[in-house]
């Protein structure tokens, strides 16, 4: 899913055709993360009884059964609330830093990459648990999971550019990692 080719002079990493940290690359990912956050917030509002009814067009009482299931409440906060927080972290770490952040802020790019992965992994685990453990499906839970999985691929090119930058500067790894003098 190459979003758009972004040619931006010196901000293009060596040996690359485009700049993976360009805003045209990052804004769609941030937007998708915020969409995931909005879905998760809505589901969490139902879980905490603030919203009385939850939207479910296909699977009858599936969404209620999933959202009220013990697995959704294993942790002190509900799974949707935790998801909302994770999406927000993804959006924030996706947004912080300029268009050359693959070399000016590698630590932020790597943090972003590391945060995107677990969110996707937990989402897939929850998707598997829906029918296998509870014999039910939840439309918005599936939508939220789809959002978190769609984000993984397009996020990784930036991570690759940062890792290549660190590899080139491995003699002064930590300076490069924190983005001190490029």
């Amino acid at each position, binding site marked *: 899913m*190459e979003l758009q080719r972004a040619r931006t002079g010196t901000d293009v990493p060596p040996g*690359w055709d485009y700049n993976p940290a360009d805003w045209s690359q990052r804004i769609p990912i941030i937007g998708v993360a915020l969409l995931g956050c909005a879905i998760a917030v809505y589901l969490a509002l139902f879980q905490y009884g603030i919203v009385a009814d939850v939207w479910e067009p296909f699977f009858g009482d599936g969404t209620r059964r999933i959202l009220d299931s013990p697995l959704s409440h294993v942790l002190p906060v509900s799974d949707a609330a935790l998801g909302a927080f994770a999406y927000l972290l993804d959006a924030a770490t996706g947004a912080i830093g300029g268009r050359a952040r693959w070399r000016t802020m590698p630590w932020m790019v790597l943090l972003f990459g590391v945060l995107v992965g677990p969110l996707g992994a937990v989402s*897939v685990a929850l998707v*598997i648990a829906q029918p296998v453990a509870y014999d039910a499906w939840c439309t918005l839970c599936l939508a939220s999971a789809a959002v978190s*999985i769609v984000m993984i*691929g397009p996020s990784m090119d930036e991570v*690759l*550019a940062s890792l290549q930058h660190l590899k080139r500067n491995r003699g002064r790894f930590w300076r490069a990692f924190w983005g001190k003098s490029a």
Partner: protein
Amino acid sequence: MTAALVSAAVGLWLMAAPAVLGYGGASADSDRVVGPLVATFAIAAASQSTRSVRWVNLLPGAWLILSPAWLGGPWTAAVNSVLSGIAVVALSTVRGRLSYRMGGGWGILFK
């Protein structure tokens, strides 16, 4: 990318198949576990920078082909599993066109 998206569609189909074809038990559980995994790796592999992730689907693909032998269940479930498995394995070998240079990719990190 086309191969990855078709592979993702096979994964989504596996999630729906037990309900559509009407089977339950171990075959249904197998499809409902493997389906989301196949779809996830396929969608991740749709991006050029992570195209190699497609190889991960060889594992669930092989499981789909071989598992009906000991999962039992109705023949519709077995045939569906084997055919889906063949499709997933075949699709995961298709690299597709890589149109952007990415500084040598992930491989140069290990050189």
